[in-house]
């Protein structure tokens, strides 16, 4: 399926899905409440069949006070890709986990929790991945500061 067909098929599944602008590959934005259902649908749908979660990460838009969660999906059966984007507010970053759909999401989400502080509901094992359990703060956030950081001279 070409990029436009995918976006079309996806918006039939979820009406509130909009194409994400300024993206070189097919990408849609969905609201966070419908994320779990949406992901399950595009995983199971035979024409789309997104069976592999290539990667999951988050972008900290400090100016807009939101985290943008990105899921890059791939279909090995059909050979097409889709990027799903959703936004959560920075002060209450909660989203439902997709670890029941793709097993790797369990650990991808742990990484995003560790570095960005996004909380996943329904996650079987939500703990830090790279940093120690008692670390304070989430390093990849744009406003992260700690005692060891070096500031670039202006």
């Amino acid at each position, binding site marked *: 399926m070409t990029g436009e067909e995918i976006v079309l098929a996806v918006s039939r599944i979820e009406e509130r899905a909009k194409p994400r602008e300024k993206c070189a590959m097919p990408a849609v934005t969905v609201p966070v409440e419908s994320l779990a259902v949406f992901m399950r649908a595009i995983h199971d749908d035979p024409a789309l069949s997104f069976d592999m979660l290539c*990667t999951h990460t988050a972008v900290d838009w400090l100016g807009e006070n939101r985290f943008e969660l990105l899921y890059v999906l791939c279909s*090995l059966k059909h050979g097409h890709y889709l990027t799903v984007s959703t936004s959560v507010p920075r002060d209450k970053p909660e989203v439902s986990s997709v670890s029941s759909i793709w097993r790797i999401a369990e650990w991808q989400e742990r990484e995003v929790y560790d570095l960005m502080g996004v909380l996943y509901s329904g996650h079987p*094992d*939500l703990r830090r991945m*790279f*940093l120690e359990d008692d670390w304070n703060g989430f*390093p990849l956030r744009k406003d992260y500061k700690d005692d060891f950081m070096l500031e670039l001279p202006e």
Partner: protein
Amino acid sequence: MTIRPITLADRIAAGQKVESLLSTQEYFVNMGPQHPSTHGVLRLLVRLDGETVREVIPVVGYVHRGIEKMGEYLTYRKFIHLSDRLDYLSAITNNWVVAMAVEKAAGIEINDRIQTIRTLCAELQRIQSHQLWWGVFGMDLGAFTAFLYGFRDREVVTDIFEETTGARLTMNYIQPGGVMFDIHPDFVKNVKKFLAYFKPKLEEYETLVSGNVIVQARLRGVGILSPGAAVSIGTTGPVLRASGVAHDLRKSEAYGVYGKVQFDIPVGVKGDCWDRYWVRIEEMRQSIRIIEQLIDSIPEGKHMTIKPTAKIKLPEGLYYNQMETARGILGALIVSDGGEKPYRIHLRSPNFNNLWSVTAMAPGLRIADLVAILSSIDVVVPDIDR
């Protein structure tokens, strides 16, 4: 509803078996972070019942250097130097992933000579990486001699790289817009000499290690990863192909000059350690085939299409590029705000997914099998931790 994160101690407790009158006592054993066969600084908490593994909990983060955070302060050309340090055994391919992402986004054109050189270097790197894997694999199984043979052959490729790029491990060779230096005048001659030297050696190793009955007994039927689990865990590279899924970006996306050469993709049948071993040996053969087709006809041209000091600015937006390294699919996801430095750069690491497949394969097997499985997955830990 509040979402409460847990600690490692909670996780360990959650896996404990309920004690019954006839149960044996399980115990935790720590493999690593310093251990001869955890390929890097990796800690595996193994819950054992006698010699049988019940659960494997990998603990990573010992080599976490914050490469993604550092990337936000560096220009794209400088970030190439960090990309080497991910999976350092595939350094040149890592460079290529980031360079190609930048080129596609910024619209930089490159010529055929550059593509051919990049493809040649990537295939040589693949052979070199698999040589090291083979040596370490033998060592983990107990055949220590294989380690020294593998490294002896790897030295030949390392010398070729050193001549052209100046470095043995972290090459920083492939830049956005081309390659950093033109290939050394002796490059073609040395590569041909290497191919002539290595091809009979590969057959020798087949007899020495692959045909050995003890190796077969240790590997066949051990650590089976079903195709469904492999795709769900997102494994890529030889691990995925050994499980029977024929997915190789060199064929499906045909970047570089892969579209112009003939080669096959080895695909396994059962997904056990033997298949993973065999797929990598076959990949070495196919890489030799690709190099043979390209080495004699490197097109003429410049080795860099943009000036080395030109500023590279990516237009605002989200970009993603993937490529097949020796271990799997490495992806570079760049979010740019229009400037010289990325707003967010994320690297999709193949070893991240491949390592977690251990938790699916190991339960029910023995410690010796765990070592064989870990070795057959071929993990390089800095790639996981970034």
